[in-house]
C-alpha cells in the first residue's frame, strides 16, 4: 500500500491531517498569544505584553495557587489511598476482592457530574458551605481509580517472597513495607502522583459544583474570565498551561515512560 507514489503521498497526507486536526488549534492559540491587537490569527504584530499582564491579575495568581495546593493534596491523598488499598487487596482472592476492587474503580464509570452534584446537594441541604475539604474529597474520589489500577497492575508482576524474605530475616511488617514493598512500587507510585495531579489541576466538572470564592481553581477562573473578556491575555495564560503540560509529559516520558500513565485506556 505504501509502495506507489500515490499511496505514500496519501499516507503521509493522512498522517499530517490527523496530527493537524489534533494539535493545530493549540499551536494557533499559542501564536495568538503574541498578537498585540485581538484574539485573531494570523497575528497583526508581535508583543509579549499579555504575558506581563498576568502579574497584574491577582485573581489568576490566586487561582493558580489554589489549583496547585489542591492538585498536590489530591495527588498525595489519592495515591496514598490507592497504594494502601492495592497492598490490602494483594493477598485477597475471590468474591470479596472482586467486589472491593470494582467498588473502588466505579468512579471511572459514573459520570463525574453526578458525583459532584450529589456532594453539592448534601452540603447544601445540611446548610453547610463549600470548603476546600469537600472539594478535596471529591477530587480524591474521582481520581482514586488511576493510582489503584497502576499499582495493582505493577503488583501483578510482584514477587511476594521478597516481602516474606524480609520478614523471615527479622524485619517487622512495618519495616518490610517501608524498606521492601514501597521502594519496589516506586515505578507505579511516581507516575500515579503526576497523573492525579494533572487530573485534579485540569478538573472542571467537579470543581464548578464544589469550589467557593477562596478556592476558585484555575480552569474555573479562566472560564469565568472568558465570559467577560476575550483578549489575547487568555491565550497567553493558556500558552503557559500548554507549555507546563508539555514539560510534565516529557518528564514522565523520560523518567518512567508513558505506558504507565495512560488515562482511561
Amino acid at each position: 500500500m505504501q509502495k506507489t507514489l500515490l499511496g505514500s503521498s496519501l499516507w503521509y497526507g493522512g498522517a499530517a491531517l490527523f496530527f493537524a486536526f489534533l494539535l493545530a488549534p493549540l499551536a494557533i492559540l499559542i501564536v495568538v498569544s503574541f498578537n498585540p491587537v485581538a484574539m485573531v490569527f494570523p497575528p497583526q504584530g508581535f508583543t509579549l505584553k499579555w504575558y506581563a499582564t498576568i502579574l497584574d491579575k491577582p485573581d489568576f495568581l490566586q487561582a493558580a495557587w489554589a489549583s496547585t495546593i489542591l492538585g498536590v493534596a489530591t495527588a498525595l491523598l489519592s495515591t496514598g489511598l490507592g497504594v494502601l488499598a492495592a497492598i490490602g487487596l494483594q493477598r485477597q482472592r475471590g468474591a470479596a476482592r472482586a467486589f472491593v476492587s470494582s467498588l473502588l474503580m466505579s468512579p471511572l464509570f459514573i459520570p463525574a457530574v453526578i458525583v459532584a452534584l450529589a456532594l453539592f446537594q448534601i452540603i447544601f441541604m445540611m446548610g453547610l458551605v463549600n470548603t476546600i475539604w469537600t472539594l478535596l474529597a471529591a477530587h480524591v474520589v474521582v481520581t482514586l481509580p488511576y493510582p489503584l489500577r497502576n499499582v495493582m497492575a505493577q503488583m501483578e508482576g510482584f514477587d511476594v517472597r521478597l516481602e516474606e524474605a524480609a520478614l523471615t530475616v527479622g524485619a517487622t511488617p512495618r519495616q518490610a513495607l517501608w524498606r521492601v514493598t514501597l521502594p519496589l512500587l516506586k515505578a507505579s507510585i511516581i507516575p500515579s502522583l503526576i497523573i492525579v495531579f494533572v487530573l485534579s489541576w485540569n478538573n472542571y466538572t467537579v470543581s464548578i459544583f464544589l469550589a467557593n470564592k477562596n478556592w476558585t481553581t484555575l480552569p474555573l477562573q479562566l472560564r469565568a474570565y472568558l465570559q467577560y473578556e476575550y483578549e489575547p491575555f487568555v491565550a497567553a495564560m493558556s500558552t503557559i498551561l500548554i507549555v507546563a503540560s508539555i514539560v510534565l509529559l516529557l518528564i514522565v516520558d523520560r523518567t518512567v515512560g508513558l505506558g504507565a500513565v495512560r488515562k482511561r485506556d
Partner: protein
Amino acid sequence: MKTSALVLPAVVILGAFFVVPLIWVVILSFLGAGPTGEVQHAFTLGNYVRFLTDSYYVNDLLLRTIRLAAIATVFSVVIGYLGAFVIARAAPTTQTWMILLVMLPLWVNLVVRTLSLMVVLGRNGPVNQILVGLGITARPLPLLYNETAVVIGMVQVAVPFVVLSVFGVLQAIPRQLEQAAMTVGATPLAAFRRVTLPLSVPGILAGSVLAFGINVESFVVPILLGGGRVRFMSVAAYETATVSNNLPFAATIGVILLIVTMVMLGVYQWAVRSAGRPATAIQAA
C-alpha cells in the same frame, strides 16, 4: 498487622463521598420541591413525569445530548482509527513521538483546548479565512455557537482516547496475518478489510464506549462552543441545582444521565461478548 485492613481507608472515603451521595441523589430524585425550592419529604414520581412528558426535556435535552454524543463518537472512532493505524505502521522511534503527540492534548486543560477551537472556528478564524479564500463560501460561515461546533469539540476531546484504545489492539495483531492474506492473493485493501479490521473490533468497541461516555457527560464543550444555545444534560443538572435551586429535579436529570451511561455500558458488554466469537474464530483459523 493484617494487610487486608489497608484497603479500609479507601473504602471509607469512597463510601462517604461517593456511594452515600449517589444513593442520596437517587432518593432525592423521588422527592418533591416546593415553590422556592425547599425539598418536600414525600415520595413522588413527579420529577420523572415532568421530565418525560415535556418535549423540551426529552427532545431538546436528553435526545439531543445522546444524538450529538453519538455523532461525535462515530467521527471520533473513524478519525481515531485512522490515526491509530498510521501510528501502528510507523517506525518504532517515530511511533514513540506520535504517541507522545496524541497524549499531549489529554494533559492540557479542557478550557484551554476548547478556547483554541473558539479561535479556530471563529467568524474571522483560520477555517473561515480558508473557506472564503478558496471561494467555497462568499461570507464567513457561522461555525461557532451551534451543534456543529459542539460536535467538533467533542470529537477533538475523544479522538486521543480512541487512538490509544485502538493502537493497543492493532499492535497486538501479528503483521504476518495480513501478509499471509496478501500472499494468497488478497489486495492490500481486502487484507485490511477481511483480516486487520475484524481483529481490531475489540479496540473499536472499547474506543467507542470511552468516547461516548466522555461525550455524553460533556460540560465545558457545550457551554463554551454551544454558547448557551446547545443544552446538555450535565449543564442542565448544574443549572437546575445552582440557579433554579430545584435539587430534586437536578437529581432527576443526574439519575437519567446515569441510566443512559449504564445502558451504554450494558450494550458494550453485550457487543464485546457477541463480537468476541468471530474474532476468536479468525484467530483459531
